[in-house]
């Protein structure tokens, strides 16, 4: 049976961390059982000819090289800094220096440990949940005390960050590594998705939904995308960003504008008594009309017409005329059936 991947990765990590001089690929292949078992010691070791090894590479050398590269990438994902060193005779060596891989001294008290434990538990997304646990384990190894269940026992608050969008993880990695992405995006009101080329800056979760802010390479402008409208796969590209990344990205302001929360004026409406509580909560003034109706002034922004129509016969728009017309249009469409 093939040796488990965790054992192979662990051995590679220990070899790279344990060495004081760079180890060649050949040495690593010869000393890690999982590689030996799967690929043998390799030509380099058999002939002793090191620089010529690449020339008479066999299929198994290629397979070993691919696995070795993937394994190094996996260890780098875990935070290991693996250096590549060219020796005088042209052979590449690898090592993970202790001083660059060490966690700087950090002392956390019991309260701080409890607070971090609570924070780490909010992720439901697999990759981030695993990363948060991994971070706590490293801190534990560094001496972080074990917290009593100071929050758990009281259990006043449970917080979860929902991540349902498949596009989340590839976008998170692309934003982390500053790699442009390509995806199909369907705008709110369009039937067909359109391909977008984006330099991803930040992802933000607002009211339970995830948004991406970035540079739209085709439109040459900053854009905000809602992750749930990305259809199909997100592919990242191995090319650099072309636009500078701003220090501050305004995802929330853009989304609030979409949601009509940025008022551009005031509307005057009539609301039937004992109805329309959310409208009343936003009203800047309320006047009883005495006939079972109240008159309200409320902030007017994009999307207000759709909201007011929801109240059906319990709301009447007085002004502005454009809002009144928009509401009437919607009502007529529904009245037709």
């Amino acid at each position: 049976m093939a040796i488990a991947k965790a054992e192979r990765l662990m051995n590679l990590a220990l070899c790279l961390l344990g060495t004081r001089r760079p180890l060649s690929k050949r040495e690593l292949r010869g000393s890690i059982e999982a590689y030996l078992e799967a690929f043998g010691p390799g030509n380099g070791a058999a002939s002793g000819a090191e620089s010529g090894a690449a020339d008479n590479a066999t299929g198994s050398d290629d397979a070993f090289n691919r696995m070795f590269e993937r394994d190094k990438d996996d260890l780098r994902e875990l935070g290991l800094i693996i250096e590549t060193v060219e020796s005088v005779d042209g052979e590449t060596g690898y090592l993970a220096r202790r001083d660059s891989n060490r966690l700087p001294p950090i002392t956390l008290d019991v309260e701080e440990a409890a607070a971090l434990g609570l924070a780490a538990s909010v992720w439901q997304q697999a990759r981030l949940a695993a990363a948060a646990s991994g971070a706590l384990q490293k801190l534990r190894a560094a001496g972080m005390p074990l917290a009593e269940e100071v929050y758990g026992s009281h259990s006043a608050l449970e917080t979860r960050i929902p991540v349902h969008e498949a596009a989340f993880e590839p976008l998170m990695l692309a934003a982390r590594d500053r790699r442009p992405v390509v995806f199909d995006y369907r705008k709110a009101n369009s039937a067909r998705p359109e391909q977008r080329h984006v330099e991803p800056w930040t992802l933000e979760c607002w009211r339970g939904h995830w948004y991406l802010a970035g540079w739209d390479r085709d439109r040459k402008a900053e854009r905000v995308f809602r992750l749930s409208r990305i259809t199909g796969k997100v592919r990242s590209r191995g090319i650099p960003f072309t636009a500078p990344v701003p220090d501050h990205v305004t995802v929330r302001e853009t989304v609030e504008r979409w949601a009509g929360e940025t008022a551009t004026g005031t509307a005057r409406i009539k609301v039937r008594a004992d109805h329309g509580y959310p409208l009343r909560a936003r009203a800047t003034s309320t006047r009883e009309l005495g006939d079972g109706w109240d008159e309200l002034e409320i902030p007017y922004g994009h999307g207000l017409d759709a909201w007011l129509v929801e109240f059906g016969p319990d709301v009447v728009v007085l002004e502005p005329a454009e809002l009144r017309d928009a509401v009437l249009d919607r009502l007529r469409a529904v009245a037709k059936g």
Partner: protein
Amino acid sequence: MAGNAIDQTRRMLSLVTYLRERPGARVTDVARAFGITEDELIGDLDVLPMCGTSFRGGDLLDIDTDGDRIWWHNPDASGSSTGEPLRLAADEATALLVAARAVATLPGLRESGRQALVRATAKIEAAAGEAAGASSRLSVTFESEGGVFADVDRAIAERRRVWITYYSPARDELTEREVDPIRLFVVGHTYMEAWCRLSEARRTFRLDRVAEIRLLDEPSDPPPVELRDLSEGLVQPAAEDPEVVIEVGPGGRWVAEYYPHDSAEELPDGGLRITLRTPDPASLRRLALRLGGDGRIVSPAALADSARDAAREALAAYGE
């Protein structure tokens, strides 16, 4: 699974550092410290003796367990490489820092807890060094509903009943009720799970729909109830709930984003035919009105009729 192998490697690297300092550590204690089950820990302890700096040199970790305690017989054999905790990876720093910054903004944290979190965040930022940089590419803003949140939080801490007026969008009305709060949670919006004395049942209340709240002097006394499983999503229609079919044009496709549904079939005009279930179809009258020309209720007929009647009644108020 590949993901598991990476997580296990990450854990085992921390484990060897941890065990080196604690000869004879108990399995139960170590599993708790690492947030894993004892079986998972035993699984790791089965792998570790196969690991070392050199297979040929026989320099393997001599770690074993009798199921109660864990012993490491050659802690110096593999050099001092495993003696020090490893730096945080970019994803690890991101996961901790983004969550910590978001949680620190919640009004429900006790002040001492918030301060501890802010201190811890600063220490993690310092210790993570450049790995902390990527955490600025992710952010989470919770909606907090500050005042109501603080009152519910206090009611839970003091085990007191609360009186609320609560807004129901489906009926466009406020109802008064007394509830025994059980817990607060945040999944997109902030919610209170409580035992409702009006309906004598467990209910979930969205805090931004609580119009008024008052703490009562009566003690809270919710019967023991199973808490909702938050991992499944909040809206879980039952199989026996009535089915609603809605056809929307391209302008109404957002419905599929906001309403959990059983199916959404593409229509030739770029619209969708959405089938969903809800315990109270009448509550969707609002949706039917909002959609206007962008969609219509296909069934049940009673719902389609009530939307049409409401629209006609509303038009009458404008003199049409």
